[in-house]
């Protein structure tokens, strides 16, 4: 019982509601939902890093790595979603583990930019590799699920279900993790690394653990995205602008709550979709404008709106 708090309950209700909604949702909405889940998971990793005081402008590296790893496995004839997503997650995490040894030594803007530099190297490698379709990328066949091979709309329905279950589990574990000693050390490292060292723990190790985690979930997001879209290409998967979008979502969401990242991702998707629909020439203007508005007027992200509403609701009660 001591693990259950309102966030856990809220997440579970949302999970069950979406699970149910999966069978009734408009197709395009499910698709937007699927993307929001994928991007939201990446933002979840960034949230964990951000709580440690670090922002990465290069997580498209892990997103792209996970996506391409899953997509390349389909070229080798593997189509099971469980295997593909697991593999994509794992290789991205492995890469994060290796690069983490270098990156954990850096802070602030240097950390942010080093990440970006590494992501640009991956971008360059993909663009140069003709076997992977260079800038065109290549398409990914619809996955199977432990032998079940859905067709038509069922592909998306099943994939949504699949993604939903895993994202739910990941989000829940992140939420619980943040309450553990290691999770709490995020705050400690952000606030004062020297004290952490002199309390007897390595700040770099804390950062490394969080970095690997963020790499894992970014790889997960990438693999899901590759399967959901049925296509990988470097501009949408590994370019620096993609990393920028992830940071955008993180800031949009705020670091208040794990659930916020998914709401942030959804809002981002919707802003983009509607900007695209109603202002096809000026969608960047709208996207950039909304981001600016959020930075200026909602410094703690959309979660703060919810908190404020809740406070307002509480006030009149005796």
């Amino acid at each position, binding site marked *: 019982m001591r693990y259950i708090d309102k966030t856990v309950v809220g997440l579970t209700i949302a999970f069950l509601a979406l699970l149910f909604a999966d069978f009734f949702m408009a197709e395009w909405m499910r698709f937007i939902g699927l993307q929001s889940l994928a991007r939201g998971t990446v933002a979840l990793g960034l949230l964990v890093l951000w709580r440690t005081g670090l922002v990465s402008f290069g997580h498209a590296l892990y997103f792209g790595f996970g996506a391409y790893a899953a997509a390349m496995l389909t070229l080798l004839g593997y189509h099971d979603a469980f295997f593909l997503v697991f593999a994509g997650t794992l290789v991205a995490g492995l890469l994060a583990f290796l690069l983490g040894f270098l990156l954990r030594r850096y802070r602030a803007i240097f950390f942010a930019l080093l990440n970006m530099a590494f992501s640009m190297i991956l971008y360059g490698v993909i663009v140069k590799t003709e076997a992977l379709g260079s800038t065109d990328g290549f398409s990914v066949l619809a996955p199977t699920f432990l032998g079940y091979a859905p067709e038509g709309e069922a592909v998306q329905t099943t994939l949504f279900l699949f993604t939903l279950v895993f994202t739910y589990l990941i989000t829940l574990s992140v939420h619980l993790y943040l309450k553990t000693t290691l999770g709490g050390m995020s705050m400690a490292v952000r606030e004062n690394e020297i004290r952490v060292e*002199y309390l007897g723990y390595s700040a770099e190790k804390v950062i490394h653990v969080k970095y690997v985690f963020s790499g894992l979930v970014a790889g997960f997001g990438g693999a899901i995205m590759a399967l959901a879209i049925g296509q990988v290409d470097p501009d949408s998967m590994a370019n620096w602008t993609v990393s920028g979008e992830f940071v955008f979502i993180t800031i949009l969401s705020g670091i208040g709550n794990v659930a916020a990242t998914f709401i942030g991702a959804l809002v981002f998707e919707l802003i983009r979709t509607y900007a695209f629909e109603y202002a096809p020439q000026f969608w960047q203007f709208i996207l950039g404008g909304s981001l600016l508005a959020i930075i200026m007027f909602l410094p703690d992200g959309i979660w703060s709106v919810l908190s404020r509403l809740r406070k307002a609701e509480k006030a009149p009660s005796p």
Partner: protein
Amino acid sequence: MSVVLEVRDLQRSFGAVIAAKDINVTVNEHEIIGIIGANGAGKTTFVNMVTGYLKPTSGQIEFAGRSVIGLPPREITRLGISRSFQVPQVFMSESVFDNLLMAYAIAEETGVGLLSPLYNDERAERVDSHLRRYQIAEYRNAMASTLPQGTRKLLDIAMAAVRKPTILMLDEPTSGISVEEKFGLMDIIMDALRVDDTTVLFIEHDMEIVERYVSRVLAFYQGEVICDAPTAEAMVDPGVREFVIGEEYHRTRTETGGSEHA
């Protein structure tokens, strides 16, 4: 009395500047030692080297019979040497309780245990009793950045003491504290540390404090230890008087007795 810390021929230079030279010190269990010296004499450098923050250029540091040269601060901390800081190093935007909760959690958990919840009732109990021991319980829920300087110093030291270290090194515990508060603060600290029989080394500028709480003095001058003697002896040492205490140091000896005006 057994030796807990042995420092031999310790040297440290920053480029051409020699910050520590030929330092030889032996510390016994349960000793309370005062480290004195003018600014830049090498006191903090000494503490930094013993706690692993700085690597000596040469020399040996042995703690409880094993060399700690090259170990990072966290490992030395785990072996049993903790420290506090001249400028308190606390988690500024967290409450006093959460600061200590984190300190306890890091001290108590390793490996998989790190993934158990940060908060549990037993740990909270220990934190609260620690708060009482350092007499900062009334600030339990205050954010560290809002604390008065003295309280923040106490918090810093309390965090350092969480592990019940064998040796605790305090870097100027009374700096920035008003004259009226100093003794009260030191009483709290010393009473708290006496419970665990902690060996204490502390850097101090105020000779009254030194004389009152310390049995032995290490005096630094230009990176060297110019005097290592029981307090009363050190206070009359000509080197100490010339280079550390200075001619302007006047006071009447009222409490501890001993020699007259300096």
